[in-house]
């Protein structure tokens, strides 16, 4: 066990994977000599050589396509898209190709690629360094979508993703890289030291895809969330004093519906929180499932607290961000319903 922040945990996952399997290859914009703009791949080129970790041209579609080709060859490419906001040029290669190759080849060819990409706001990145596009990938059958909320999970989920034979979009909440963040923009910076999930095993372990984590047990309501919002929801629960059951989904495809339904059937209330814009966000799918499966146990309408249906504005980062105040207010309102 070592105390790691999320970047270090991700870096450690790379080292673990690359040491174990020579077929794991890492590339992306600035990931080689420099080690990535967020330093996630620091030291890998020095340790494993230029053909195992290298810089790529600025062409996200090309990066994903090359990874697919390598995956078809039999390698396990682990690639970085510098910001999730820049993944759209690769949409066709992800949707029409990575997600479809197993199906359309009758199961003969695979695209076992993992696409890491920092997402979400909270670093004053403006509308093109803050987006949360997870819903787009959740709609594409054939892709898996994984979102860690702690260093421990980040490493374990990343190893599980790379060892999985399916293409995985691995969204890293960049605001959590250096410490847990509860959404109080004016708070001093917290680090992962001291947080139980900041203790990370040095070697190989996995956190399985499709297993949610009940990070707080409670009886008053169920809160479904992932990524940065896990910490925001925990803060809101603490601050409101409402006995929430907070479920960190960890992956939205596959989705741990059993854990979700068990919790909502128990609490009778369900709040969904994500940072992405509301309309057709993944919260909609969660609400659709929960209302259908728990209809007779629901005591209040399911509510969603999310980013607004606007781009993520630079100066209004904190007005946009669904922080503990907005989440807490929704919790209170739901308890009154």
């Amino acid at each position, binding site marked *: 066990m070592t105390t790691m922040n999320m970047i270090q945990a991700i870096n450690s996952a790379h080292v673990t994977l690359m040491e174990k399997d*020579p*077929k794991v*290859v890492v590339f992306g914009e600035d990931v080689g000599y420099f080690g990535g703009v967020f330093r996630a791949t620091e030291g890998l080129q020095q340790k494993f050589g230029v*053909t*195992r970790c290298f810089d*790529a*041209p600025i*062409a996200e*579609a*090309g990066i994903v*396509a*090359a*990874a*697919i*080709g*390598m*995956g*078809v*060859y*039999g*390698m396990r*490419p682990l690639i970085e898209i510098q910001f999730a906001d820049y993944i759209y*040029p690769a949409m*066709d*290669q992800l949707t*029409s*190709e990575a997600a*479809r*190759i*197993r*199906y*359309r*080849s*009758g*199961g*003969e*060819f*695979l695209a076992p690629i993992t696409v890491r990409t920092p997402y979400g706001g909270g670093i004053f990145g403006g509308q093109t360094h803050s987006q949360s596009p997870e819903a787009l990938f959740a709609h594409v*059958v*054939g892709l*898996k979508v994984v979102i860690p909320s702690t260093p421990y999970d980040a490493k374990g989920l990343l190893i599980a993703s790379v060892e*999985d*034979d*399916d293409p995985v979009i691995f969204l890293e909440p960049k605001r959590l890289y250096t410490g847990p963040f509860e959404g109080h923009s004016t708070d001093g910076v917290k680090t992962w030291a001291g947080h139980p999930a900041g203790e990370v095993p040095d070697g190989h372990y996995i956190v399985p895809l*499709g297993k949610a984590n009940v990070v707080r047990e409670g009886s008053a309501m169920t809160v479904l969330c992932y990524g940065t919002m896990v910490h925001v929801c925990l803060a809101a629960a603490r601050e409101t004093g409402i006995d929430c059951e907070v479920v960190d989904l960890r992956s939205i*495809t*596959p*989705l*741990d*519906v*059993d854990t979700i339904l068990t919790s909502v059937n128990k609490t009778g209330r369900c709040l969904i929180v994500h940072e992405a814009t509301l309309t057709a966000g993944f919260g909609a799918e969660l609400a659709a499932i929960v209302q259908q499966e728990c209809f007779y146990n629901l005591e209040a309408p399911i509510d969603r607290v999310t980013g607004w249906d606007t781009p993520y504005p630079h100066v209004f980062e904190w007005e946009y961000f669904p922080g503990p105040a907005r989440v807490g207010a929704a919790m209170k309102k739901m308890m009154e319903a």
Partner: protein
Amino acid sequence: MSDRGKTAKAAKAEPAKRNSIPLKLRVPEPPARPGQAADFSHIKLPAAGVTRRPDVASQPAEMHDLAYGLVRVLNEKGEAVGPWAPKIDADLMRRGLRIMMMTRAYDDRMYKAQRQGKTSFYMKSTGEEAVPTAAGLALDDTDMLFPAYRQQALLFARNWPMLDMMNQIYSNAHDRLKGRQLPVMYSSKEAGFFTISGNLATQFSQAVGWAMASAIMGDTRICATWIGDGSTAEGDFHHACTFAAVYKAPVILNIVNNQWAISSFQGIAGGTEAPFAARGVGYGLPALRVDGNDFLAVYAATQWAIERARSNQGATLIEHFTYRMEGHSTSDDPTRYRAADERQKWPGGDPIERLKQHLIKLGEWDETRHTAQQEEMEKLVKDTQRQAEAIGTLQAGQKPSPKTMFEDIYGGEPDWRMRKQRQQFGI
């Protein structure tokens, strides 16, 4: 929001004093449309043998001219001439001829099967058979292929069973793709033939990734990929060329310029501004322009590119200049957009006819054998079709099991939604 406007007054410089003529948009047009006589006068086919053959070890910068020339080996007399004439024996050429004839017979039959309502769709490769056939024979069987949808001859070149291909056309119970894909979108891992995509151009950059992987692993296998002239306009083409050049990937990038992309002539993809091969020059890739209807030229160019790739000299871009003799697909009627007599006037000849004449010239073939082989091919296709139809067609006979529809989306156990949906579906 007050006086933001005020801050924003640009002190404009005085207007330019020049005689401006109105701009106009140029939209390229093919030389002839329906109702007009076909016109190929813009096409300059250099004589066979005149285009030089640089040493395989030459630098790309020393061979820009090759992108603007045309590698041709077979002359009008049926002789193989010039520096590109490959040293291959008659058996191999006869094999090439056989594969091309098999492809054409197969195409004709499957086209008709679609017309008879036995499947939904078909695409012929008529007139372009030399491109995949010669490349398929030049490459090792363990090299990987990333084709577009008009290289079915590659499968014949690898002795892939025709029955397996027909089962795919019919989406029947023996279709290895379980009826999922549109006809002609073959896939076979065993044959080293990558699953064809309905989304144009995507395979081009994937192939570069495969080649990079082979290089990273210190393997000896290379790969080849094909793209249509129209499809070169997609970003994937650019990514493929960029990655191939940057990492010196052992890949052969083939552009099949059959001059049409459905109803759009090659000028709409920029083919009249510069030959497609010239695109490669811009990336520092060696680039060849080859007579795609000349089996020996395609074979020789592919061999040259193979040698470069196997010796760590990286990728080669090859434009195969050919002509789409038939409609785009069974959904298309080319008389609506191109001159009716184009096929007749096309000066590049028929690849089967040209190789046949060469073999006859060499004394290695004759009309009797040719007619016999033609009949043999027709019978083979017919017999195989009968076998395939005994299994099923799109409309009749044995289909794949509907439950396969829910398989191969992910590996591992089905998740909650998949279990629920299978149940709703009744399986």
